[in-house]
C-alpha cells in the first residue's frame, strides 16, 4: 500500500524458525482501523489464538506506530503494543512513549511488527531499513533495561530506537514491562515476560527512508496552526522548567530544580516531560537517573519507605532497570506484609519476620521478586496467582485489585483520588485490567467541578454526539453527570490518539479536537475521513479487543470495582453532591454497557453492535468457536 503517513508494511518475525517476512499493509484495513492501536487490534484478534498460554511461543508481540508517527505533527511519536498478558490472560493493549523508536521504525519502512515463536538462545531484533536481523543477545542478557540501552547505543551509535526488557522480564515476572529507551513504559500486565519467554531481550530500529505526506500544502496549515497554539500555551514554559510537576505538583519546585539535570523529549514533543535527575545528597550522591517523569520517582515516598529524595529516586531506578511495574511490586510487598501481620503467612514462608518498609529491605525484595528467590518467586506471579493462594479471609486488608492488577487510582488506591471520574471508572471496565489512560481524554480530574456547559464544550471537542451528551447529562442518583456513559467516549477518544500516534497526555491531546484529528489524517494519508468516522473506527477497534477478551472468557463478572472503594471512605461525584455507593457504581456500569450497545447482563457486545461496526466475522467466529454474542 502506498499512502502518505503509512510506511506500508508489517514485519513478521518468527523467532523459532528465524523466518523474517515483510507483508504489505492492506489499504482496507488501514481505512477501517486507521493504524497503531486499531491495526494492532485486528492483528491481535486474527493472530492470537484463544486459550494459548501467554508465555508460550504461540503468543504474539504486536507493536505498531500510527500514521502520524514519523511526521512533525506535534507529539506524534507514540507506539503501542498488544499481546496476551501473563498477569491475567487478557488480550492487553498498551500505549507507550515512542522516544526515537516509533519514528525510526516508521522511517525504516514498517507500521507494525508481529513477533512469534521462541529463540533457542537470547536474541535481540535489529531493524535497519530492509536489513532485519535476529542477533545474539548474549552480551546484554542479564543486564537491566537501561543498561541494555547503553550497551546497544555504544554498539550501534545514535540515533537509535530501542525497546528493551530488564531481568524481571527474562525471569518471567508476570507484571514486568518493556521500556522504550529506558523512559517509556510499555505493556503493563507482563509484556516484559512475553519478551523473556521468547528469549527476546530488545528490538532496535533505525530508518533512513523517511515518511511522506499525501497533500503537503493541505498538511501545512493545521500543523502550523498547532505549533502557533502550542507556542502560546500558558503551561508551556512551566512544563519546560518543571516537567510534569508543572501540572501535578507532587514535590516543591525548588526541591525538583535541585535534582533536575536535563529534560528529554520524545520526537516532536512540545513539552519534554521525561528527564534525567541527579541525586545531590546522601549515599547515592552524584548518581544520574533516567525517569519517565520525576513524579513517578516518588512512589517509594508515597509508600512511606523513605522521605529522602535520593533513596526514592534510587529505588525507582532499580524498579525501572529490573523492568518491574512499580505499582504492582510495591503493592504486592505491602500485601505480603499484611498477610504476615494477620498470621496468614509464617516467617518460614516469607523468609523474614514481616517486610520492613525501609529502602534496603525493599531493594532486597525487588531483587528477590526479579530473580524469583524465596517468597519473591510467589509474588512474581502477580496478584491473580497470589490471591488464589492467599485470598481467603483478607477482607480487612484486601488489595485494591481488579483483573489481577492494582486499581492504582481511587479512594483507597496507592494514588488517592476522591472523585469518581472516568479515571476511576476506567479501572474496572478496561478489558485488559486497571488502566486509567482512557480517562485522560476526559479532563475531569484536572478541572473538578467545572460547569456543565464547560464539560459539554469539551465533549463537543471530542466529537461526542449531542444525543449521547443528553444521556450523559441526565441526572441520576443525585449526580449531574453520568461517568459510566461518558466512559465510552473517553475510551474512544484516547484510542483515536493511539491509532494516530499522538501522545496520550492531557497536556497534549487538549490541542487535538476530533475535527483537527480528522483533517490531519485526511491530509497526511489522502484517505478522506470525518470526525464521526474516526470515532466509529475507534469504536470498531475497541470492540475487536473486547471480542478478543470475550473469547478468553472475560465478561461482566470481571468488570468490578474494588470492594474497598465502598467502605467508610467513599468517592464523591464530579460535583461533590453525593457519595458513590456500590449500587450507584454498578448502576453506572449498566449505563456504560448500554451506551456501548453491549448486553447489560453479560457485559459483552451484541450481534447488532458488531454488525453495525462491520464486524460480522466476529459473530461468525463466535458461532464456530462457541462464543454466543447476544
Amino acid at each position, binding site marked *: 500500500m502506498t499512502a502518505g503517513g503509512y510506511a506500508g508494511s508489517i514485519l513478521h518475525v518468527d523467532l523459532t524458525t528465524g523466518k523474517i517476512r515483510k507483508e504489505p499493509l492492506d489499504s482496507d484495513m488501514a481505512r477501517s482501523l486507521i493504524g497503531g492501536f486499531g491495526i494492532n487490534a485486528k492483528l491481535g484478534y486474527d493472530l492470537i489464538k484463544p486459550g494459548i498460554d501467554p508465555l508460550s511461543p504461540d503468543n504474539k508481540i504486536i507493536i505498531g506506530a500510527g500514521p502520524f508517527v*514519523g*511526521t*512533525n505533527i506535534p507529539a506524534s511519536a507514540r507506539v503501542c503494543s498488544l499481546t496476551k498478558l501473563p498477569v491475567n490472560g487478557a488480550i492487553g493493549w498498551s500505549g507507550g512513549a515512542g522516544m526515537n523508536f516509533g*519514528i525510526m521504525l516508521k*522511517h525504516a519502512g514498517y507500521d507494525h511488527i508481529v513477533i512469534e515463536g521462541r529463540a533457542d538462545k537470547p536474541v535481540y531484533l535489529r531493524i535497519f531499513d530492509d536489513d532485519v536481523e535476529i542477533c545474539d543477545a548474549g552480551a546484554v542478557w542479564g543486564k537491566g533495561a537501561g543498561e541494555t540501552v547503553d550497551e546497544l547505543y555504544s554498539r550501534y551509535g*545514535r*540515533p537509535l530506537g530501542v525497546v528493551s526488557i530488564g531481568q524481571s522480564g527474562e525471569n518471567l515476572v508476570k507484571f514486568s514491562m518493556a521500556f522504550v529507551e529506558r523512559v517509556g513504559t510499555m505493556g503493563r500486565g507482563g509484556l516484559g515476560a512475553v519478551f523473556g519467554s521468547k528469549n527476546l531481550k530488545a528490538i532496535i530500529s533505525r530508518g*533512513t*527512508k*523517511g*515518511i*511522506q*505526506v499525501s497533500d*503537503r500544502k493541505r498538511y501545512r496549515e493545521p500543523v502550523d496552526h498547532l*505549533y502557533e497554539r*502550542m*507556542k502560546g500555551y500558558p503551561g*508551556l514554559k512551566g512544563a*519546560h522548567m518543571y516537567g510534569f510537576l508543572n501540572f501535578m505538583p507532587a514535590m516543591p519546585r525548588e526541591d525538583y530544580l535541585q535534582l533536575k*539535570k*536535563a*529534560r*528529554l*523529549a*520524545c*520526537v*516532536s*514533543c*512540545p513539552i*519534554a516531560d521525561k528527564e*534525567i535527575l541527579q541525586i545531590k545528597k546522601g549515599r547515592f550522591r552524584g548518581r*544520574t537517573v533516567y525517569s519517565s517523569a520525576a513524579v513517578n520517582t516518588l512512589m517509594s515516598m508515597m509508600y512511606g519507605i523513605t522521605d529522602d529524595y535520593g533513596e526514592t529516586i534510587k529505588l525507582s531506578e532499580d524498579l525501572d532497570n529490573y523492568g518491574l511495574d512499580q505499582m504492582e511490586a510495591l503493592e504486592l510487598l505491602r500485601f505480603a506484609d499484611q498477610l504476615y501481620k494477620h498470621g496468614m503467612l509464617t516467617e518460614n514462608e516469607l523468609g523474614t519476620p514481616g517486610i520492613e518498609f525501609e529502602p534496603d529491605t525493599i531493594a532486597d525484595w525487588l531483587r528477590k521478586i526479579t530473580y524469583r528467590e524465596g517468597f519473591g518467586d510467589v509474588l512474581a506471579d502477580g496478584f491473580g496467582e497470589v490471591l488464589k493462594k492467599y485470598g481467603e479471609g483478607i477482607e480487612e486488608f484486601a488489595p485494591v485489585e481488579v483483573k489481577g492488577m492494582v486499581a492504582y487510582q481511587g479512594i483507597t488506591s496507592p494514588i488517592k483520588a476522591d472523585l469518581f471520574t472516568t479515571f476511576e471508572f476506567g479501572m474496572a471496565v478496561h478489558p485488559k485490567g486497571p488502566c486509567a489512560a482512557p480517562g485522560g481524554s476526559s479532563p475531569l480530574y484536572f478541572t473538578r467541578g467545572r460547569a456543565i456547559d464547560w464539560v459539554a464544550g469539551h465533549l463537543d471537542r471530542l466529537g461526542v454526539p449531542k444525543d449521547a451528551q443528553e444521556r450523559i447529562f441526565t441526572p441520576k442518583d443525585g449526580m449531574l453527570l453520568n461517568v459510566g456513559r461518558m466512559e465510552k467516549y473517553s475510551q474512544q477518544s484516547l484510542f483515536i490518539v493511539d491509532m494516530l500516534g499522538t501522545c496520550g497526555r492531557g497536556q497534549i491531546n487538549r490541542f487535538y479536537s476530533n475535527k483537527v484529528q480528522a483533517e490531519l489524517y485526511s491530509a497526511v494519508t489522502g484517505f478522506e475521513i470525518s470526525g464521526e468516522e474516526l470515532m466509529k473506527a475507534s469504536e470498531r477497534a475497541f470492540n475487536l479487543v473486547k471480542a478478543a477478551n470475550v473469547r478468553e472468557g472475560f465478561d461482566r463478572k470481571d468488570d468490578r470495582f474494588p470492594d474497598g472503594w465502598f467502605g467508610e471512605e467513599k468517592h464523591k461525584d464530579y460535583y461533590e453532591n453525593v457519595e458513590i455507593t456500590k449500587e450507584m457504581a454498578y448502576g453506572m456500569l449498566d449505563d456504560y454497557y448500554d451506551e456501548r450497545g453491549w448486553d447489560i447482563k453479560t457485559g459483552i457486545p451484541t450481534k447488532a453492535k458488531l454488525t453495525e461496526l462491520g464486524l460480522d466475522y466476529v459473530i461468525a467466529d463466535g458461532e464456530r468457536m462457541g462464543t454466543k454474542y447476544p
Partner: protein
Amino acid sequence: MKFELRTYPMRCVGCLNCQLICSFLFEKVFNIFKARIMIDRVDGNSKIGFTDKCTRCGSCADYCLYGALEKVEEVIE
C-alpha cells in the same frame, strides 16, 4: 531570506523537530538523515550542527519550541 542563527544547545531536549521540518521543506520527506541541521544528543547533552547545504532559512528556529535555535537577524547579501 537568510538569517543568522544562534544555537543554545543547553536548551535542546532532543525532540528533532528542527530536523523533521528541514527535511520536509527541502526534501519533501520527513527524514532526519536528510536534514541540513543535525542534532547529536548523548545523555542529555546536545550538539547542534549544520551541513554545508544549509541555506539559513531559519525554519528550524521557527519550529523549535524550546528556544534552542534563534533567528537573530536577517542577512542581506
